């Protein structure tokens, strides 16, 4: 950070119009923040000659309504131009049927009629960002810095992504909200949690880490002494409309399971040892192929990894343990994605 001149007069302080900010006609400067944000969006669409439908046509200014831009459902939240946090109302996230696909943040200076689109979060990213918050509250505070990409990313997503790539997710998909479903995997696998919070939700079970359970071509087998004594397995299946778990799996023709275990990678060649998480998605019938196109996505902080089955018997991934929350999504083209609640390798 640059040093501040000691004689700098606060009266002289002004901020540069942020890069990418939209300057509205000055006649609009006394509008409400949402009105200005929508006007800015409309202005950007006109300037870029993008003819995308923006709705709801007669109720755009209603803050309780989601925007529909190119048929993508967007929750638009606003804050002042210099804000470092904004409040995201949780009401739209109660029901997965009508929850937003994107959360967009607009920073608004009403007095200067300037709008900066801070960026967007997908529903999956919002779930991860809100994981530690009290989902039963009326709103969840998020740092503005968590929103990325500005207007450019919003327009990129709504123009290019298939709607199925932006699943609708509900905060109350699990009873009591995500905070209660936040799984401390290390404690669970060590057997020190009184109950398994994923058992009821996803039919997940704890099993002893059997020898060879994680054996895989090209991957080291987990040595018993280095691994967690238990592994967590989540039964999964392909239903006609969605990737499902728990009891619904019994009715599926294609079924498979996700197994999670932690282990300690030993030090070698000057590299320090490290705690790792191993995930393995495999058919429930040993040796069977997974459905082609089945995807496993793991998001940790800002990074994300995705594996897609193509003639594969398993998808296997090793991740270094970190303080960041992990979210896991199982996807299949044309089906609603199954999003598991965030998990942590640390205690909540």
């Amino acid at each position, binding site marked *: 950070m640059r040093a501040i001149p000691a004689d700098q007069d606060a009266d002289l302080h002004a901020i540069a*119009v942020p890069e990418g900010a939209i300057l509205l006609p000055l006649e609009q*400067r006394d509008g409400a923040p949402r009105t200005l944000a929508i006007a800015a969006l409309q202005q950007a669409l006109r300037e870029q000659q993008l003819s995308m439908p923006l709705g709801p046509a007669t109720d755009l200014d209603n803050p309780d309504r989601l925007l529909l831009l190119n048929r993508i459902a967007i929750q638009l939240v606003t804050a002042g131009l210099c804000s470092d946090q904004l409040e995201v109302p949780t009401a739209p996230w109660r029901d997965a049927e009508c929850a937003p696909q994107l959360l967009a943040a607009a920073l608004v*200076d009403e007095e200067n009629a300037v709008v900066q689109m801070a960026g967007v979060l997908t529903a999956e990213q919002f779930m991860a960002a809100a994981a530690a918050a009290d989902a039963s509250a009326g709103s969840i505070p998020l740092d503005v810095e968590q929103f990325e990409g500005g207007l450019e990313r919003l327009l990129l997503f709504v123009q290019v992504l298939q709607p199925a790539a932006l699943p609708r997710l509900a905060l109350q998909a699990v009873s009591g909200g995500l905070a209660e479903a936040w799984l401390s995997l290390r404690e669970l696998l060590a057997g020190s949690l009184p109950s398994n919070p994923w058992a009821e939700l996803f039919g997940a079970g704890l099993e002893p880490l059997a020898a060879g359970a994680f054996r895989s071509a090209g991957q080291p087998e987990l040595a018993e002494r280095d691994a967690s004594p238990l592994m967590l397995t989540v039964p999964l299946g392909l239903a006609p409309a969605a990737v499902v778990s728990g009891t619904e799996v019994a009715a599926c023709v294609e079924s498979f399971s996700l197994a999670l275990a932690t282990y300690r990678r030993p030090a070698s060649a000057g590299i320090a040892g490290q705690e790792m998480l191993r995930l393995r998605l495999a058919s429930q019938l040993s040796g069977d192929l997974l459905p082609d196109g089945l995807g496993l996505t793991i998001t940790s902080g800002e990074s994300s990894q995705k594996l*897609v089955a193509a003639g594969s018997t398993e998808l296997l991934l090793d991740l270094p343990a970190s303080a960041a929350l992990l979210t896991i999504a199982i996807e299949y083209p044309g089906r609603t994605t199954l999003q598991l609640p965030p998990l942590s390798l640390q205690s909540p």
Partner: protein
Amino acid sequence: MSAYSQLRTLSGSGIRLKDLPQAAAYLEQAELVVEEASASTDLDLWFNSQEQPDPLPLLCLRCRLSDPLHQWLQGMQRLHGQQHPLEPTAMAAYLLDDDGSLQLSLEKQRQPFTYAAIAGSTAPNLHPFTADVLRSWDPKRASLSHWGRERARSHPPLKAYFRECGLLLIRDWALLADTSPTRVHTVWLRFGTGALSADQAVALHGRYLPLYREAKHHHRQSYGKATGWEPDDTFLQQIAPDQPTSATKAQLQAIAKAIRLLQSGNWQAGSGDDLEQASDSAQAEGLLEDSEMDDTTNASALLQQITAALQRAMDRLLPAELAKEQQRFVKAPEKQLAWQLYGQGLSQREIAARCDHQQAWVSKLLDEKRRSGQIATAAAAELVRQPGFQACATSPEALVRLHEALRNHLLEPEQQGGVAPLRLWFQRALHTP
């Protein structure tokens, strides 16, 4: 200068100091012979202006006010003029528009420039600007010079001018409302002054927020606008009933000042973003790996698809952009030169030197990030319909990577020493009759 008998004013020859013998004579007659400005003289003149229907005490205050306004403008020029195209005379036209006349126009009628006349006017804005400041000044709330600067910061025409120059004036009250308790705590520990602890500053700010929102809502309903709200004694009393309102106001302003100090560093550090430096050629080279393509697909064929899609997107989007720029070439031939140099592959720094402008001017003119982003989006929309890129339409992360790679491809030359595709497009377009 004599604070109360010399006026800073904008004339045809620029900003000058104008002697006003009538004001000097009034001061002598009222036994207020002072060279330096003082709060007590301000008050004496202010009371005199209310007791007598005489324009002269107000004239003295107008002189007095013109100097801090001038200093404020000079400060703005000094602090922001390097990065923003501020013109001293243009700024002065908004604040130093008082010519020292003893009459002013109110409701289309010439009237004596007295306190009674300006206080009785219902016009939302008065001209000259000094009339507006003196009408609203309350000596109990602020000194005259401070009030003048406050009003300047919220003067809509001046704010509009600054906005045109890429600069935003954010008032303390809005800034406080935008700031989270966490940040208040942080900035107070780092930059706070005075007796408040960080926890006390957070508590004060916490009481301010809901009352501010309520007051702004009420102001908007009453006046139909967001601008112009000022905290009054009742408002300040509600925030901290156990201390004088002046202390509460000073504490809130101290918090705002601390926030500004933090922001100065952040915003300054973020300005002058040079995409040229930020571009990561390694990412461009890794384009094919990032796009999650089928292993069997021929890489060079995919590269051809990318190049063709980008070219089509540029051909579709850039002619209208260039046409807009070309309209400005007659009045500003250095802009044409800048685009030509850009097409030849010169860096922003080199272009700035050749055009005799700051690098920020070049960066704003080229607007590379926005233009390249729009082209990359259009190209991505086309590419995801082709087999090698379909996966990018089903994954936000893959799409973002593809978009970044396309942008980098536009901005980086394919071969060392070559010219990047976006620059090449402008080079060809500007050479075409």
